[in-house]
């Protein structure tokens, strides 16, 4: 028996070891969540090495991919830059469309309130001098416009057409020194004439006894036959009364911001 064991010693030990490992495995199968001492020791020992290897590997990988293996990177970068520029341009365009849409919606709402036939036009130019206040719009006689027609924006009165060609027209703004618009203070119905002063308006011929206060809305009176009655012109800014005299001195800021005017409406017809 002993001879037999000696002869097959290696085989017996191998089978025994195999059995032990199988039993160990079988035992550990039932205790999946338990970490053995051995496992803990191995993990503890291996952890710093693993970290070191991992960081070294990352570094090498980083150096390799960032500094050595750069075959397609430049091309990829150029493509991305191009795509980025295209997307930015598209985004700007979308933003421009959105703003234009908002402005046109306001203009359309204004047309509905106006109850008159009106033609939208784009502002394409300004006056060549620094003292005159005129703008050029992109509609002319071919669109049915003619001299003298009133031009308005969503915020109020802009001016009137003074010169016209086939595809463009020049509009005299109400802020021009030669412009005068018959006006009314909305709250008190006091009459006056709004004259341009470049950036703002002076309101002349308003009776001294009339009650006018800063902030009052100035609207068109409808006299003169160019502007329909009740369109906003501006807001009273200052009120000055001398001790003597028939009239008071008023200044007003326009309701329309002429420095940012892009679309206007030309009132082409009679009330609808």
């Amino acid at each position, binding site marked *: 028996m002993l001879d037999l064991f000696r002869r097959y010693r290696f085989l017996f030990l191998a089978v025994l070891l195999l059995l032990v490992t199988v039993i160990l495995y079988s035992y550990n199968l039932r205790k999946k969540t338990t970490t053995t001492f051995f496992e803990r020791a191995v993990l503890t020992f291996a952890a710093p090495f693993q970290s070191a290897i991992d960081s070294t590997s990352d570094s090498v990988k980083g150096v390799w991919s960032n500094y050595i293996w750069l075959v397609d990177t430049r091309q990829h970068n150029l493509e991305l830059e191009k795509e980025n520029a295209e997307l930015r341009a598209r985004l700007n365009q979308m933003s421009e469309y959105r703003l234009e849409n908002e402005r046109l919606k306001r203009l359309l709402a204004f047309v509905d309130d106006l109850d008159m036939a009106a033609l939208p036009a784009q502002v*394409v*130019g*300004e*006056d*060549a*001098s*620094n*003292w*005159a*206040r*005129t703008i*050029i719009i992109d509609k002319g006689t071919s669109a049915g416009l003619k001299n003298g027609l009133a031009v308005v924006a969503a915020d109020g009165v802009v001016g009137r057409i*003074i*010169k016209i060609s086939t595809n463009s027209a*020049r509009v*005299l703004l109400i802020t*021009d*020194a*030669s412009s005068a618009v018959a006006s009314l203070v909305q709250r008190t119905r006091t009459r006056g004439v709004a*004259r*341009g*002063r*470049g950036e703002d308006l*002076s309101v002349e011929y308003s009776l001294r006894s009339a009650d006018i206060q800063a902030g009052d809305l100035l609207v068109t009176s409808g006299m003169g036959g160019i502007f329909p009655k009740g369109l906003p012109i501006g807001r009273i800014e200052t009120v000055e009364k001398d001790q003597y005299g028939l009239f008071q001195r008023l200044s007003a800021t326009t309701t329309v911001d002429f*420095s940012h005017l892009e679309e206007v409406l030309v009132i082409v017809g009679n009330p609808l």
Partner: protein
Amino acid sequence: MRRFFFYLILALIFALLQTSVFPLFFSPNWRPSLILLLVLYVGLREPSLRAVVTCLFLGAIQDSFCGHSVGLYLTVYLTILLIVLGLSEQLNIESSPLLLALVVGGTLVENLLLWFYLTVLADSAPALHILLPGVPQQLIVNLLAALLLLALLARVKRLFGLRRGFTSLIVAGRAHVS
């Protein structure tokens, strides 16, 4: 005749710049009066008859792009041109500082004449209220524009090999320094 058409085309380009490009970047008082600079240049460089005819067309172009009554700038520019023609016989027109002094004088005279005609003839009394605050800015931008145009002219002449007038002095001076 070629020079005459050249001035007209240049004036049209200047008018387009003043009406469609400058408004995008500058407020009214900070926009240079390029056609005025052209009038001054024509007054210094061209024979009297050609200068007067060209100036009338330049004034008409400016009137077409400005205000509402044709004739205002015709009158103003013609007055300025006649003053320049009178001065050019007395002074050394080859001097570029003289041109800059003329720009200052021309801008002041332009504003003075505009105020006069707008107040006396057109009954636009608030014009003074608009013109007066803008004079300092107009002086600055017109001077800057004149300097830029002179530098541009010198470069163009160097490119095309032309050496005449006061620009030749600038070119010769730079060549001498370098």
